[in-house]
């Protein structure tokens, strides 16, 4: 795997101007009558051992970013680099060694495990596919993974439906860990879990990150969870990143009006604190026909004439705090 090892300074995952447009087809002949601009020019990088939180409303394209970065979806345009190597145009076979470096954990712990395989088989499968070890070694590695994620070895014989949601998510984590990846994409990995279980799974993920020096691309809509786990946070709106900063800066000094609104919508667990609420009006516009100019101007309380025509670019406001807004 010598060709995969590159300079360790390169970020584990680097995405440049990533675009994913889904064609809308209609009729017998499948004519394309339009596009869903799910992801429309997103750039970011995740360093070794770091966590980038990706937040945004439902339908803003955050999950599509995760899937496209993993090349589970083919990008329409842009570049994906894994540890410095451009993997955007690699064939499926060429991509395989890079698959070992990045794995994914899904939101729904029920549909992300094949109901006809035992938990042990599910966790062992990646080892088998990548020809790691012989049967006995794989068995040992699977047992170790079960121990590590907090499942009993005797549960390896059980089928997914015999586990609770939190336990299933642990199986999903064990499967992702099996190949010892340097990056895990967490596609809302705790959104479907009870709050008490969320904390356990988040803590497990953070412990594992420290142990193995893994990077996370953590996709979520729950700001409290993102604040807890992330080093850096990127806010997405309608297929684009509108603001990105390190966690502390973003949560204390949000610059984009959308980030402001998101933060003010998150409850503070202290009834004595009164906060000025900035409640957004209306829904996210359709990504089939996004608004001209700034995508957010239709809901922005500060929008000016300029916002309706001119597209704001991401500007650096110092310390890696970037924001796309004409007014800030």
């Amino acid at each position: 795997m010598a060709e995969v090892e590159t300079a360790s300074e390169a970020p584990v995952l680097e995405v440049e101007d990533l675009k994913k447009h889904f064609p809308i087809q209609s009729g017998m002949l499948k004519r394309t009558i339009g596009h869903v601009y799910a992801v429309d020019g997103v750039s970011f990088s995740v360093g070794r051992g770091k966590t980038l939180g990706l937040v945004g409303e439902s339908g803003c394209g955050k999950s599509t970013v995760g899937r496209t970065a993993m090349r589970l979806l083919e990008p329409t345009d842009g570049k994906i680099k894994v540890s410095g190597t451009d993997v955007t145009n690699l064939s499926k076979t060429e991509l395989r060694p890079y698959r070992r470096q990045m794995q994914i954990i899904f939101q729904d712990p029920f549909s992300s495990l094949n109901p006809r395989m035992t938990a042990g088989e599910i966790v062992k499968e990646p080892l088998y596919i990548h020809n790691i070890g012989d049967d006995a070694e794989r068995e040992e590695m699977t047992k170790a993974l079960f121990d590590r994620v907090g499942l009993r070895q005797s549960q390896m014989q059980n089928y997914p439906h015999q586990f609770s949601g939190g336990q299933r998510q642990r199986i999903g984590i064990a499967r992702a860990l099996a190949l010892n990846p340097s990056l895990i994409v967490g596609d809302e990995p705790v959104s479907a879990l009870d709050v008490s279980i969320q904390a356990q799974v988040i803590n497990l993920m953070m412990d594992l990150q420290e142990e193995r020096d893994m990077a996370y691309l953590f996709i979520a809509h729950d700001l409290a969870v993102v604040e807890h786990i992330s080093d850096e946070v990127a806010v997405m709106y309608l297929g684009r990143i509108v603001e990105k900063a390190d966690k502390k800066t973003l949560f204390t000094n949000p610059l984009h009006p959308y980030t402001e609104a998101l933060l003010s919508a998150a409850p503070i667990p202290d009834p004595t604190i009164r906060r000025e609420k900035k409640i957004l009006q209306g829904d996210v516009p359709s990504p089939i026909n996004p608004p001209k100019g700034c995508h957010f101007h239709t809901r922005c309380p500060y929008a000016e004439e300029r916002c309706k025509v001119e597209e704001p670019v991401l500007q650096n406001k110092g310390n890696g705090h970037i924001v796309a807004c004409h007014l800030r």
Partner: protein
Amino acid sequence: MAKPVIDHAAELAKAGAGVDSRLSKAWFLAKSYPLGAIGLLLFLALVFCGVFAEWIAPMDPVKTNAATSLAAPGALHALGADMMGRDMLSRIIHGARISLAVGIGSTILGCFFGVVIGLASGYLLGWFDLITQRIIDVMQALPLLVMALVMAAALGPSLENTIIAISIPLVPHVARVIRSNTLSLREMPFVEAAKAIGMSETRIALKHVLPNTLAPLIVLATAQLGSAILTEASLSFLGLGIPEPHPSWGRMLSESAAEYVRTAPWLVIFPGIAISFAVFGANLLGDAVRDILDPRQRS
């Protein structure tokens, strides 16, 4: 008050734990699915008759005897004799072989091609899917019996051709079911996870998609087992099925129905009972197999 004593071993055994040997596992399944066990018994009886027909049948099923023509059930002929004086019991026992061969043969053949086409169609999509689905639309527009009739007429009457003729109309049904299942399964996160692992598309289709389509396939296949036996009967009646003198339940039933139902009802009743039991058994067995195969229905 005395402390209640709980016999853990007995409680566990009652709950179905500790099923170690194959026999006790089978016994546990039979107790959990009594109807399935009945179905299995009926089906095994059919298989037994089919396989050991030569040994258990009291007489030669094709030997005619003018003296016993239309003899009523009695000491010599337990289930009576047909118009040619052939022993009905022996003919029914031998008929099991034909019904079994046609039922199982056509079901396996039809399901195999249906699964291959349905899986490829649902997984590959694109032009392959478009073309196969249009062909299937055309095939499904024709009733099963008409399709089988056309096929049987084109191929000529023989056991093999009857199996082929009955299996072809099954292909589009199976292909449709498998395709629609494949369409929803290919979008499941566990299939994405398999892709993320770097698994080949063929392996994903066979290992992750196919096993999850088994339950509806088995239901379809066992329902087909019964209707294949009935279709064979219809074909035989029209002279396009199993040729004389081989005993086929369907022909035994249909050729005597009009003429002898009043004078010699045993010619109609006994083959009818044989067909009913075979179809009933196959259906009960199928339902039980579906439940057992689905791990989610096991508790």
